[in-house]
């Protein structure tokens, strides 16, 4: 498929709830809209493979998942050009994107850009987390959604956060056996969350979350207050060790699924030069947005979990609002054709209710964010916590110096799996706030591209429209 209408009125990156919601609005209003996602099919993480999943038994993934089908259908019917398998690897302040699909990269211009690149699971740097057999819980969920695959053998889940319980329930409904769920939520979090209970109690999370917990606890040994979690084995996972109230324990395991919440996927936004700030409640970087949701770069908006974790319904509402803003900017005369802003804002407020409690209750513990000694921090370049602290000792005051000293964060994942750990470790070592320590200076390409593909752009640049039709 070509980038047909280049330059576009609107280019949207990410076809999760936020991106789909935005596209439905802008294309629905008649703006030429390009929606790119590097996954083969639309849906993002929550609605992953909703149009193609082999799981027809609806109760396994649940109603919240299947709700995505309607949203995908709406975006598809809106007239937006939706391209799967398309990786956006650069975006600049002039709103020029570079994207690769079907083996070819091309430049794309848009009058408005909406980034809806969502979230990724927070790094979980414990000893042994690089062993084959250790994955994120979200990875197991993706295998279930896309391929109907479930772990076969001894499965242990560990971590904290509402999604962990959802994953567990979905796996159980799919017939998987879970040896144990190791809950790392610190006891102190329950106290800290108390003030937020009233708002939470009337949110949709309350009833749902408690029901999930009950469903899982009926079928699985749940160990609370887990600390000192380690994955053990030679060349592959053999066992999981941890400390609980009952003392040190070790479980034989074939698969360990880790999860301690999700954080915004900031790489493309930061590489574009959009200003970010440290968000202490969610312990992550979020873009600096003005009251109307604009980033520090004119014409580039961010919607969904990329602005801070709010969940799928909030993401969809934010996406629609960003779409609305794009229509207002590009073709205000078409505003009559789009839904009322007020209604969308109300939907967003409803969806955001209860979030404060989740943030407090499921704040991941320090020990699983601040590794020590030989534990690997940067998986790509195999840099340990000890090495990082040494670098701080000889003058690496921030992540960028650490990178220059150790290549930490310089591998292909570009810090996605180590960046937060690096910021927090340096912050702890220097005794200054994460905001002061800062983050890696991210640069395009946000995903590697082959030299051949880049070389070919030297010719196609002036003839983007002539790119071969698939």
């Amino acid at each position, binding site marked *: 498929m070509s980038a047909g209408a280049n330059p576009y009125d609107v280019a949207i990156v990410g076809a999760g709830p936020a991106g789909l919601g935005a596209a439905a609005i802008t294309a629905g209003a008649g703006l030429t809209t390009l929606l790119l996602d590097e996954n083969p099919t639309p849906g993002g993480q929550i609605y992953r493979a909703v149009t193609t999943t082999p799981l027809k038994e609806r109760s396994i993934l649940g109603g919240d998942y299947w709700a995505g089908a309607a949203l995908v259908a709406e975006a598809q019917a809106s007239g937006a050009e939706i391209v799967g398998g398309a990786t956006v690897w*650069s975006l*600049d*302040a002039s709103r020029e994107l*570079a994207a690769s699909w079907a083996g070819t990269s091309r*430049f794309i211009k848009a009058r408005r850009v909406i980034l809806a690149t969502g979230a990724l699971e927070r790094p979980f740097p414990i000893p042994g987390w690089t062993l084959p057999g250790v994955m994120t819980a979200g990875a197991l969920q993706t295998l279930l959604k896309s391929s109907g695959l479930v772990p076969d053998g001894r499965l242990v889940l560990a971590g904290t956060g509402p999604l962990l319980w959802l994953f567990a329930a979905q796996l159980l409904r799919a017939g998987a056996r879970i040896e144990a769920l190791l809950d790392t939520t610190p006891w102190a979090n329950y106290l800290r969350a108390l003030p937020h209970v009233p708002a939470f109690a009337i949110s949709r999370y309350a009833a749902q979350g408690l029901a999930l917990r009950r469903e899982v606890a009926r079928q699985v040994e749940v160990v609370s207050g887990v600390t000192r979690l380690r994955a053990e084995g030679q060349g592959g996972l053999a066992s999981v060790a941890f400390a609980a109230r009952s003392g040190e324990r070790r479980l034989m395991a074939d698969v360990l699924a880790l999860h301690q919440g999700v954080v915004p996927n900031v790489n493309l936004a*930061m590489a574009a*030069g*959009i*200003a*970010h*700030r*440290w968000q202490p409640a969610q312990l992550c*970087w979020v873009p600096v947005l003005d009251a109307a949701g604009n980033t*520090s770069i004119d014409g580039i908006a961010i919607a969904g979990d990329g602005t801070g974790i709010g969940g799928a319904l909030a993401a969809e509402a934010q996406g629609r609002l960003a779409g609305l803003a794009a229509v207002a900017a590009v073709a205000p005369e078409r505003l009559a054709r789009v839904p009322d802003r007020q209604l969308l804002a109300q939907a967003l407020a409803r969806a955001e209710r209860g979030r404060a409690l989740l943030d407090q209750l499921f704040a991941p513990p320090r020990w699983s964010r601040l590794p020590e000694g030989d534990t690997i921090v940067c998986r790509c370049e195999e840099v340990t916590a000890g090495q990082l602290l040494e670098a701080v000792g*000889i*003058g690496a*005051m*921030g992540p*960028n*110096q650490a990178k*220059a*000293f150790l*290549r930490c964060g*310089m*591998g*292909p994942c*570009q810090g996605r799996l180590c960046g937060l750990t690096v910021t927090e470790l340096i912050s702890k070592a220097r005794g200054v706030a994460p*905001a002061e320590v*800062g*983050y890696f*200076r991210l*640069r*395009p*390409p946000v995903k*590697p*591209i*082959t*030299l*051949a593909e*880049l*070389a*070919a*752009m*030297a*010719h196609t*640049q002036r003839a983007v429209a002539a790119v071969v039709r698939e």
Partner: protein
Amino acid sequence: MRSTADVIVIGGGIHGCSTALHLALRGLRSLVVEKDYAGRHASGVNAGGVRQLARHLAEVPLSVASMELWERIGDLLDDDCGFESHGQVLVAESEAELDQFRARVAQLRLQGYTHEELIDRAELKRLIPAVSDACPGGVVSRRDGAADPFRTTQAFRRKAIALGATVLEGVRVTGLERRAGMWRVSSSAGAFEAPVIVNAAGAWAARIAASLGEPVPLEVMALMLMITDRVPRFIAPVVILRGRKLSFKQLANGTVLIGGGHQGRPDRDANTTEIDWHKLAESARTVWELFPAMRGARIVRAWAGIEARMPDDIPVIGPSATAEGVYHQFGFCGHGFQLAPGLGALMAELIATGRTNLPIAPFSIARFAPAKGANATPDSTPDLMRTTPGGQA
């Protein structure tokens, strides 16, 4: 805060740090004031080429002198700086180009310099088996090589401190004032005084010069580089081209660094740069043609460093033409990394003894003195107070 040093060095790049180190070796105490951190800009993010090859004739004596220091950099700094000497090769892409190179090498010989050596197709292939068969030969400078730029800058900084220099990072110079034979330097961390100042402020140096009444036509450039993932070792020397913009080297860890002078878009006040992928695509195209083996390699990162360029492509070195006790050391036009060890020694000599044996007349700032009645350049506003909003997180 008020502090006195023998010399205040403005700018903590490799040049500022090298000068501070060599001043310390001569028993002079210096204070380096850096607005970000040492090596944050051009010095820490450059291509690391340690090159005498293909230099401007005026630079050759300085470059050759600096090379002596590179060859014992470990003794000087207690850190080998990742310096490896596998030579640098200027590849000719055509017979006509090779003829030009031949004339240049002959000219150097006449002046007594033998580091550049003309090579034929066979020797080129022996040095760089992966190069395209279409190339008829080139020039090699066998003692050249490459080092790790950030590590080198840090090593200069550390050694300078160990020998008594002070390096203030995150401190911005906001004004200069001459009082009773002393320079009073105001900064975001208070004022400092010293009889001598060195302007080693890189792309920001023109503002310092302008505030001393000698504006210079300094162009801010954002030199771009890109780097691949690790590939097996396949090339030892650094490769450069003359006609098309390319420099190309494989680092010890297997990654391949591709540069050569294409520029991105700098924003000097925001401390940021933006990559121009249209131009990097041209670089990729050149590598694609010259090194077919590289076609499947992956570009994992690109960046640009903010650097100063003078209209005649050579730096400004030496005493101020207008202000007493001021020395300039900036405007390296994208090739100042190799010069830093030697130039630091030269500056220290100049400051301590008032003279040097190396020919620095071509680098005098006086060459830009405006003809009477000429308009000042945009950078001539003595606006040191301009604030930096700071880069993103």
